[in-house]
Each structure stands twice: as C-alpha cells, then as structure tokens.
C-alpha cells in the first residue's frame, strides 16, 4: 500500500501537474480573498452571487478565513478533476495492467493511490490557506477592516475549524472524482460528468425544487466546506446533515467502485 502511495507521489509531483494545479490554487485563492476586500463597498456585492460580506462580518474572528472558506468549494472541484484524471488515466493509457502485475492487491492499489492524492490535496489546501489569509491580511487595512480579532484564540479556532471542514469537503469531492474515474474509465468523461453535475445539474435541480439541496452530493460537500452554509444557496444546510448525507454518498460510491475494481477483468 505504501509502495503504491510513494510511487503515485512520483507521478503527482511532475512539474506540469504539480505546478499547474498549485498555480490555479494560488490564483483562485488570491482572487476569492481579494474580491472580498476590494469590492467591499460595491453595490453588486463582494461574494458569490452578489452576496455582500460586510466590514463588520469580516472584522469578526472568522473574518480572516472568510476568503479561505469561500474558495473551499472550488478546491473541491480541482480535487475532483485531479482524482478523476489520475484514476481514469490508468485505463486510457493501459497502465493499469502494469500496476496490477507489480501490485496484485487491487484494494492496496486503490488505498495507496487515495493516500497519495489525499497528500496532494492537503498541500493544495495548505497553500490555499496561506495565500487566502495572506491576501486578507494585506488587503484588510485598505478596506478598513479591523484584524484585531483574527489573531486571537477565536481566530485560531476559526482557522482550525475551516481547515478541517475544507479538508473533509475536498477529500469528499476527490473521492467522488476517483469513483467517477473508476466507473467511467476515461478522464474526460469522468471530469465532464463530475463538473457538469456539480456546477450545472445540481443548481438546475435546486432551482426547480429548492428542498433538493438537502440531498444533492455537491451541495452537502460545499456546505461542509463553508461550515454549514452552502455556496450560492439561498437557504442553508445544517452542518451535521451535510456531513451525514455527504458521508453516505461518498461511502456508497467508494464501496461500489472498490467492489467493481477488485472484481472487474482488466482487458484493456
């Protein structure tokens, strides 16, 4: 299992993938956090879908991680793409047979890959936290937002809570990506389906029937990332509900994908 994880890390650290992904994380983390402060007086709002996060809210202990929380759902989408691509490409390149010849324990391969990708996601989240919080600290004085409460015990607690929530959410999204990769066996199909579902289909369904947001997998994971309030939803999802329903989705998906992966013939 650890051999698989170490081998997978060799693949994940290649410059194009690593620097490309981290570059996107830096860009969007800086963008999300900057907009919170730069557009604080804008009549069109400074958060997603025209919402306004006021000076008073940003001045609370949680204000320093507001940008980081906002970018959490987006980090989830990135994780979904990376996990899906890294899993499905084994089928399209035909490299799965090499993996299985060198490591016949199929579940070990899955777990090893998952560990490596979790580490990759962790680096992504830490980087995002550093960039988001740095941008917030730099831009707060310009936006006349007080940072006094950010560095107290409550501020540290808010950072810790946000970090854990985003880790859970990102790994949830990543697991869904991995499941799609295993089921669809094509990076393009897995990523397209995942992104299309999370960004378009879920929102359309919720627009038609608002109560559906309580049962959509993407909405639950976004709710976890933001600590109980999903991005772009008019009403909130309770954190514990999101954790339970999101967890059930991830567990069922992972169970089905693992079962198929360990039983399915590898004929390509």
């Amino acid at each position, binding site marked *: 299992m650890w*051999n*698989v994880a*170490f*081998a997978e890390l*060799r*693949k994940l650290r*290649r410059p*194009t*993938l690593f620097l490309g992904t981290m570059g996107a994380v830096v860009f969007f983390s800086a963008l999300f956090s900057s907009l919170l402060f730069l557009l604080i007086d804008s009549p069109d709002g400074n958060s997603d879908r025209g919402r306004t996060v006021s000076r008073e809210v940003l001045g609370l202990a949680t204000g320093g991680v507001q940008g980081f929380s906002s970018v959490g759902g987006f980090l989830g989408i990135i994780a979904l793409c990376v996990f899906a691509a890294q899993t499905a*490409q084994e089928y399209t*390149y*035909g*490299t799965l*047979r*090499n*993996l*299985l*010849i*060198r*490591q*016949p*324990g199929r579940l070990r391969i899955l777990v090893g890959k998952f560990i490596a990708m979790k580490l990759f996601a962790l680096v992504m989240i830490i980087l995002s936290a550093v960039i988001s919080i740095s941008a917030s600290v730099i831009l707060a004085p310009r936006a006349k937002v007080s940072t006094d409460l950010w560095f107290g015990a409550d501020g540290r607690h808010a950072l810790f809570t946000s970090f854990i929530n985003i880790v859970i959410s990102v790994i949830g999204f990543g697991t869904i990506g991995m499941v799609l990769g295993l089921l669809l066996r094509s990076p393009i199909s897995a990523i397209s389906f995942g992104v299309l579902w999370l960004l378009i289909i879920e929102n359309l369904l919720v627009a038609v029937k608002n109560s559906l947001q309580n049962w959509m997998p993407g909405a639950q994971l976004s709710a976890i990332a933001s600590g109980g309030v999903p991005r772009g939803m008019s009403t909130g999802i309770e954190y514990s509900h999101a954790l339970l329903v999101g967890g059930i989705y991830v567990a069922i998906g992972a169970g089905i994908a693992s079962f198929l992966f360990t039983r399915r*013939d*590898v*004929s390509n």
Partner: protein
Amino acid sequence: MAMSNTAISVTDLSKKYGDRMAVSHATFEVPLGTICGFVGPNGSGKTTTMRMLLGLITPTGGTGEILGESIKHPEKYLPRVGAMIEGPAFYPALSGKENLNYLATLGGFPIERVQGLLEQVGLGDRGKSKYKTYSLGMKQRLGIAAALLPNPQLLMLDEPTNGLDPEGIQEVRALLRSLANDGTSVFVSSHLLSELELISDYLVMLRKGEVVFTGKMTDLMLSQQPIIIAKSTNASDLETLQTIAETAGHHAVIRDGAVHVAGPADWAVEFNRAAFDAGITLSQLTPQLPNLEETFFEMTGEK
C-alpha cells in the same frame, strides 16, 4: 514457496465471454529454464491466456500454476514474474527512467537497477526523454526493461519484437537466450515465427482458443512430413508440376512461386524425372523439413 519443475502449468484453463470461448480447456506445461514460444493466429486466445496467468482476468474454468503457485493467488508469484502484455504501456508525460522508477517503487525493487536496465535494452542515453517522444521500437525496449525489473524467474512477453528493426530483433533474441542460459524461464508470443523457431525450446500452439500442440520444438518439427520445393524456369509450369505430384498421390500446393509437395525426400528423383518427361526444366528442387511457419499454417489452417 512451492517447489515445482514447471514454470507454467495449466489444466483445462478456459475463458468465456458471453457465448464465445476465448480460451477452451487449454492444457500445457512450460518447463523451468526454457524459452517457450506461444503462437497462434490473431484472436486465438494468446493474450487472454497470458492475462489469466497474470491475474488480470479471472478464468471461467480450469486451474493453473505459475512457479508452483496457483493462479488464484497472483500475489504469491508475481514478484518473481516479469511481463509485458499487449504492448508497452507507460505514462506519456514521464520520462522512460521516471516510468521505471515508478514501477520499481511500486514493486519494491531497488531504484538503482533502473539505469542498468535502460542500458541493457539500449536506452541508456534516452532515459531522460519523455515517453511520448519515443519511437515504437524504443517503447518496446522500455517495456522489456520494465519486465526485467524484478530480476524475474519467469518472463512473459507478448509480441516483444513489434516495431523493432532487424538489429533490435536480433538484440532481443540474444537477450532472451542469455536470460534463459542464466536460468530464467521465458514465455514469449510472437507473430515472427522464424524468430521463435530460432530461440524456442518449447512451443505452445493455439487455434481458436484450443491448444493444438504443446511440446518440444524439435519434436514438432520432426513430426512433420518433409516437403519438396520445386521451381520451374517457366512460372506457367507450376500447375502442371502440382498435377504431377497429386497424380503420384502427394499433396501439393503452389506458394510463393514454387510448388510445395508433401512427400519423402527420395521421391524428388522421381518427381524430377516426371517433370522432365513433361517437358519442364526445373530451376530448383529442394527436399526439406517444413519450417515453423509452414508447420503453423498447416496446423492452424491459416493462409
């Protein structure tokens, strides 16, 4: 670790896809330390058999052992097996060396072996190039290097000479022979039958998923009826020569601009005389044992 004097032993091994039997009750053995050629027309079940032996697909029926271990437990023998199946497959964005490092880490083999293997297969100076820039021959060489990573007791190669130039083919032949001399068992499929004839000690021949021959290469060749190859100065005489042979009770076919007659070598004298009487001057009259290719066509009904 189980002791056995066979590298591969399968009994009634079968694989069914829907209504189609891809491999049907295959039974054969490959002794340790030999090079065994694995031949059969396209779609005869060679790759499916290899996949079953490597634990990639589950047999529908039958049993098998690799290096004394049941194929139901590939984890017990795969660390001692090197394989390249259905062509090389690597990550295009990684270099050849990084790809091998990946597999070495995965299998728990020393990374230090990688550079030596790259040199052994003639890629020593191209190890740092991305795999996607490799020619087909270079990809094939990298696949062979990957198969050699575990320092295998059994090497299973599916069409290893695909895409190689004549020099590369000769190098692979020498490599396989030297590995066999060092005690490695080699199970190799190839459509280059002349190559297999040169290096194989054993042979397993498949046709439509069934084993039609298994045994020593020499036994197969000696069991075949000798043939007499005759050419005329005038190509239009070939049909007459065929008629002469068939009238004398010998099976004859026209192939590659010559008449191939199944018959004993001493009948060649009589054949020459009959041709002369028919006004035909022969430009070639050669009694010989059929080569593997001719035997293959005869046994598999191909061509």
